[in-house]
């Protein structure tokens, strides 16, 4: 099967079907390669909850700011989080007002900083899906091993699988999924087999090149049309069927699952990971952030965007009151958020 034949097939007549790509990097690549324009109008691509930054609740940002304003405390965060709106401020605005916020490139940096400055407590803003979670587990391990008592973990860790389960259970319109790329490196392609079978939705694990994505779409269309609901790993050079067993063991050793709030969606059971009992003393108050009463009420429709119910341009704020320069909703804040990606590629 060559690419020309695949393109011809995908442009031809099909039954109506919606394919969700879960990962923001796939969304970017779909735009960059103009993939929508190559598909028959019956094949619709829907962007899913592809970015952990976008689903982090306002109450989490508020708690992070609280720590950054506590005397002798420093909040360490990835740069992506800086502009996410809290109930009153973002971390970026709080920093401008004097809160102690430092951007990290890796959570490992906390170890050196904490050892060098024992009078300061470093609170790591631990945000991420399964790709990032093992790196926090490694810091936890080394914190304990080195006897450091001035590192704390404020977690908003989210598991992709319960979110996909939630989408499958509440929305029958999605016919098939392009599985997230580097999350699958950790989880393994076989992780999706249970969902595929239970909900009769095929999954394709795909690379990020335009060709990879076209092949995945072709695979999924053919599966749906032939009533097959399997997981096909089309990115075996980066994703193994069993994932990264060492990384998964680290996650299980340090964290346990519990309910977690997804901004715009609500609480999803078992979708959060929290430091387990043995390491709870290192936690900075993460478990109390299950609700989002702090959320400002606006016309923002990020929740529906995250679930793939609407496209960003169907939100009344998109490109008008909500732009990357003045983001109102979390999907516009993050460079990997669906609205941010749509804005970049469609509003130039």
């Amino acid at each position, binding site marked *: 099967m060559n690419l020309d034949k695949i393109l011809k097939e995908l442009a031809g007549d099909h039954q109506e079907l919606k394919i969700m790509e879960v990962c923001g990097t796939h969304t970017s690549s779909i735009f960059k390669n103009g993939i929508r324009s190559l598909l028959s109008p019956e094949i619709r691509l829907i962007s899913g909850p592809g970015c952990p930054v976008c689903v982090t609740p306002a109450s989490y940002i508020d708690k992070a700011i609280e720590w950054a304003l506590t005397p002798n405390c420093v909040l360490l965060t990835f740069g992506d989080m800086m502009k996410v709106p809290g109930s009153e401020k973002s971390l970026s605005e709080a920093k401008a007002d004097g809160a102690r916020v430092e951007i990290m490139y890796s959570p490992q940096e906390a170890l050196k900083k904490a050892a060098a400055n024992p009078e300061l407590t470093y609170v790591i803003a631990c945000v991420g899906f399964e790709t990032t979670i093992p*790196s926090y587990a490694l810091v936890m391990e080394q914190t304990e091993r080195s006897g450091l008592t001035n590192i704390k973990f404020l977690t908003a860790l989210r598991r992709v699988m319960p979110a996909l389960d939630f989408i499958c259970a509440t929305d029958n319109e999605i016919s098939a999924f392009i599985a997230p790329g580097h999350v699958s490196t950790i989880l393994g392609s076989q992780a999706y087999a249970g969902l595929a079978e239970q909900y009769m939705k095929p999954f394709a694990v795909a690379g990020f*090149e335009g060709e990879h994505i076209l092949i995945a779409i072709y695979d999924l269309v053919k599966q749906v049309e032939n009533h097959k609901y399997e997981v096909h790993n089309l990115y075996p050079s980066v994703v*193994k069927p069993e994932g990264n067993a060492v990384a998964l063991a680290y996650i299980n050793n340090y964290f346990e699952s519990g309910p977690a709030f997804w901004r715009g969606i609500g609480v999803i059971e078992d979708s959060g990971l929290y430091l387990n009992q043995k390491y709870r003393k290192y936690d900075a108050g993460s478990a109390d952030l299950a609700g989002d009463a702090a959320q400002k009420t606006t016309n923002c429709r990020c929740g529906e965007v995250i679930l793939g119910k609407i496209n960003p341009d169907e939100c009344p704020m998109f490109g008008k009151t909500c732009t990357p320069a003045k983001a109102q909703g979390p999907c516009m804040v993050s460079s990997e958020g669906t609205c941010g990606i749509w804005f*970049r590629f469609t509003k130039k």
Partner: protein
Amino acid sequence: MCVAVPGKVVEVNDFTGKVDFQGNIIDVNMALVDAQAGDYVLVHAGCAIEVIQKDTADEILELFAELESLKYES
């Protein structure tokens, strides 16, 4: 946020290592992979998460460069 970047392992000492990202040598935690000097690894948040082949590494780097250039055009 889940983007992982490929680099070439320069040295490994137990759980830490140095990885070359197009000329920048960075300290990387190697506890999650079984990699030797000369291997290519995917690195995310300061940790190597998978060992990959050189051609896969080149392909990913090329794509990210393209996506990055688009990101800042506007």
